């Protein structure tokens, strides 16, 4: 009977292994069929765009042909300006993200683990969340000037809320049964954090970080539109002022690419500690969320 049981369990395990295998296949960095499928829609849109330009359906003053946009980007690249603009924008996002994420992590841990801290701090934080983040702009400019500090501050505010909310909720939602298990096995407070709380909250925390990063990109545009002499956002304003839609569209595309790349990097960095998750994503090869 025990043998039969073992066979049954082995079979059960095998079928699990196949799904695990799919996950490890999918996590190789070579593009799979699913990734290629993802390129179909943007490439199709570019083709449509090209057709619209070639047939004169699109007004070149408003929507220049794809080739012209590419030409503008290449020209900017060759002059060295583009690298400069991208670096400045990336730097702002990175700085704001760092400040926002650190503040959110500290406060999220505090309000997540201590009832007192939550009752004391959380209502205020929730109330601040209700302020549309762009409404801070006038105040930040007044306080921190029109240069880098006010921009970083604005981006940090944008990053803060998704990270904070996800982390606090995740800590509060940790299964009480697992905490009890830690108690039965004599884990100290720190050991409980290290072995139970931290890994249990990590998925939601990463979701928060990725959401925060997306908002960081959103807010860097706002910050650069409101006054800057460098950066992708400045490039767009410049294109608008000088009537060059190709520049605006080029900057738009660069924003999309940069946002994708940074999100992907964050995903890559956190993929390994999250590999244990038994989710639909791991069944489908782990790429859909990337």
């Amino acid at each position: 009977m025990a043998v039969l049981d073992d066979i049954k369990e082995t079979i059960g395990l095998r079928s699990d292994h196949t799904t695990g295998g799919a996950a490890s296949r999918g996590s190789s960095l070579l593009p799979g069929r699913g990734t290629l499928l993802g390129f179909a829609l943007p490439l199709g849109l570019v083709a449509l765009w090209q057709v619209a330009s070639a047939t004169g359906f699109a007004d070149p003053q408003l929507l220049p042909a794809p080739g012209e946009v590419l030409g503008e980007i290449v020209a900017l690249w060759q002059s060295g300006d583009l690298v400069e603009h991208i670096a400045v924008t990336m730097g702002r996002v990175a700085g704001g993200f760092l400040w926002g994420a650190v503040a959110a992590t500290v406060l999220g841990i505090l309000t997540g683990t201590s009832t007192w801290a939550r009752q004391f701090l959380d209502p205020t934080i929730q109330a601040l969340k209700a302020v549309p983040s762009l409404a801070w702009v006038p105040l930040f400019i007044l306080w921190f000037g029109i240069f880098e500090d006010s921009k970083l501050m604005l981006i940090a505010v944008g990053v803060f809320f998704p990270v904070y909310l996800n982390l606090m909720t995740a800590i509060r939602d940790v299964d009480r049964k697992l905490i009890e298990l830690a108690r039965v096995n004599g884990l100290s407070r720190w050991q409980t954090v290290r072995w139970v709380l931290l890994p249990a909250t990590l998925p939601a925390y990463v979701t928060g970080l990725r959401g925060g990063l997306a908002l960081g990109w959103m807010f860097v545009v706002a910050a650069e539109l409101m006054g800057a002499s460098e950066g992708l956002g400045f490039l767009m304003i410049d294109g608008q002022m000088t009537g060059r839609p190709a520049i605006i569209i080029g900057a738009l595309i660069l924003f999309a690419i940069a946002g994708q790349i940074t999100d992907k990097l964050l995903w890559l960095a956190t993929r390994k500690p999250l590999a244990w998750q038994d989710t639909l994503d791991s069944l489908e090869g782990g790429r859909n969320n990337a």
Partner: protein
Amino acid sequence: MLEIQDICRRFTTPDGAVVRALEDVSLTIREHEIISLVGTSGCGKSTLLRLLSGLDHPTEGLVQLDGRTVDKPSPEIGMVFQEPRLLPWLTVTDNVGVALLDTPKTEKAERVAAVLEKVGLTKFADALPRQLSGGMAQRVAIARALVRRPSILLMDEPFSALDSFTKQTLQDHVLDLWRDESFTVVLVTHDLEEAVTLSDRVVVMRGNPGRIDRVVEIDSKRPRDRTSDAVQSLKRDLTAALHLN
């Protein structure tokens, strides 16, 4: 020897009512005994088990293990819950190792490997919980409880979520482990056949307030045939006793 002396456990509900979960419960559990707690739901059997584990404290009375009061979880007392409660981010080895965090590395590795061998999971040492069947996961939970070499193993309906075939296999397995080691088992169950097949004594509890109604001694040899007349007639007696409640 685990002694339960005149225990009361009362809870106060949010609206101020007092629930008497256990009232005047006394019981002496002998060394290397298997004892089952049975009763309808709400009779206090799980509350009693939590008091024995040190996770909860009696309102009145004492729980003593070899003369020392049990007031917090200790390595002497192992616990297996109804669900395996494995940490999904750790391998089988690390899940068992969580019970030995303060043990030196090499000793820990040896003890974990030995206990996994004992529950027949050596081949799955590096598997993640999501790759295990329900029966295997519960065996990991048993291994994690046993790796601390407890003198008492508390089990809270440990087989109730398993299919009947896996359940019997696992019951026999626990019986084998119990024979090889020298621990005492306190088993909460609502499965009377399980209680009769495994136990030296079955404690029938009655709810509201939770009390011990009667203690039934079973002194036939183990392993017991589940289909035998003796087991089935005891099961009938116990069913009748529970229905009297």
